[in-house]
């Protein structure tokens, strides 16, 4: 209880922790850019998958759309990072042209961001181990699935297809978002290329506090 109070105090009082630096913004922008091109192309591929296998096949790639926000949060570890990164990514997708239209791009980004921010707030922006990352990557799926079932008409399919779609999306979120985020993040940590970020100074970093 005392630790929790201390951590809330830390979040409220330590402005430098909450404030996003210029380096954070540039990283978020570049991650959004790095994701914008592939997802813009992927959206057309996804459309083709939807044509060939309905909601089941198109759900296999869901994890790839979520990776950049989670990776940004994993590296920067500050409140609002997921929200801004996903919002930036949605803007880039809209400008590049997406097969699903701007509304879907924005709605998806907001759904992922809300869940990621909520869970990392509950984890007090300190839990970034395997279980936490994998848990969040799965948790980001259901909210967007509920919204998309209304927007893209998945709710008209029968219950079996509906539930299978949700399961495939969760697996995709786990394998294509959670696992790569952790692996890429950890491998980057060793390279010391991301020294300006909280991630490189965290307890789980091999670079230690003085990196």
């Amino acid at each position, binding site marked *: 209880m005392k630790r929790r109070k201390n951590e809330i105090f830390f979040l409220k009082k330590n402005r430098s922790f909450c404030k*996003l630096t*210029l*380096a954070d*913004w*540039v*990283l*978020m*922008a*570049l991650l*959004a*850019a*790095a994701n*914008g*091109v592939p997802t813009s192309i992927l959206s*057309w591929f996804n*459309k*083709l998958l*939807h*044509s*060939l*296998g*309905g909601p089941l096949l198109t759900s296999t790639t869901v994890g790839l759309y979520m990776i950049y926000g989670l990776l940004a949060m994993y590296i920067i570890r500050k409140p609002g990072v997921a929200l*801004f990164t996903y*919002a*930036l990514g949605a*803007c*880039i997708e*809209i*400008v*590049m*042209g*997406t*097969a*699903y*239209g*701007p*509304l*879907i791009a924005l709605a998806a980004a907001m759904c992922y961001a809300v869940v990621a921010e909520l869970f990392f707030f509950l984890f007090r922006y300190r839990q970034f181990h395997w279980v936490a990352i994998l848990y969040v990557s799965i948790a980001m799926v259901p909210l967007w699935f509920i919204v998309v079932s209304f*927007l*893209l*008409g998945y709710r*008209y*399919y*029968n219950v079996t*297809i509906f539930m299978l779609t949700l399961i495939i999306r969760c697996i995709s979120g786990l394998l294509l978002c959670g696992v*790569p985020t952790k*692996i*890429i993040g950890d*491998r*980057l940590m060793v*390279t010391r*290329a*991301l020294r*300006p970020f909280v991630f490189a100074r965290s307890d789980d970093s091999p670079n230690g506090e003085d990196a």
Partner: protein
Amino acid sequence: MKGIWLFSTSISVMCSLELVWQSSWLLSVLIIAITGTGWSFVRWIKVVIFLFIFSGPLFIVQWFLLPGTDTIGSILGTELTREAFQLSLVLTMRALTLSFSSILFASTTASRDVITVLVHYLRIPQRFAYAVALALRFMPLLVDEARRIRAAQQRRQLTPSANVYIWIDRRYNYLIAVANSMANRIRYIVMAMEGKQFDGATTRTVWRKLDFSCRAITMATLTVVAMIVTIIFG
């Protein structure tokens, strides 16, 4: 104005499941494309083929998968129903309208106009708007860098491996190399921006201004009205 049109179109097609409304919106997008884009005949053929590749199979698959009661035929033991046909047609039209309007917007709008609108007219926080600008500016550089890293890695690994684990490991190595190069670039960008006192002021002078013609304003207003009508009656 194009943004208003794009969002109104998206919201409208999402709100309605009536065939009449969906076909009207698709038709309006087609008319705008024919009259406003100035595309060549060859480009039109490419776009139509591109959209048909997605929409044709989508319509057929949805017709097979969607439920219904009024059977009108059977193929390979699967009953084809009238309700499924209608719903599949509506959903395919919706997908077509969304894709086509997005293509129109992306191909006819300069990215710097989007930034100007974000900063000057929508009052989005400066940092966010400039992050969008930065992302757009560095996109070609990132693509080029990723291509160079891939070419270098391909030359080193002379024969592609059939082993799945090695293949995955090489893909990860590629991603790490791109991410590492990106991280180094971030340091240079941040140093340059700090050197130019990017954080020195809370507001920025925006010289670029957009002129909205009367025709564009009328078009945007009509689209919004049509969207409201669709939401209420569609």
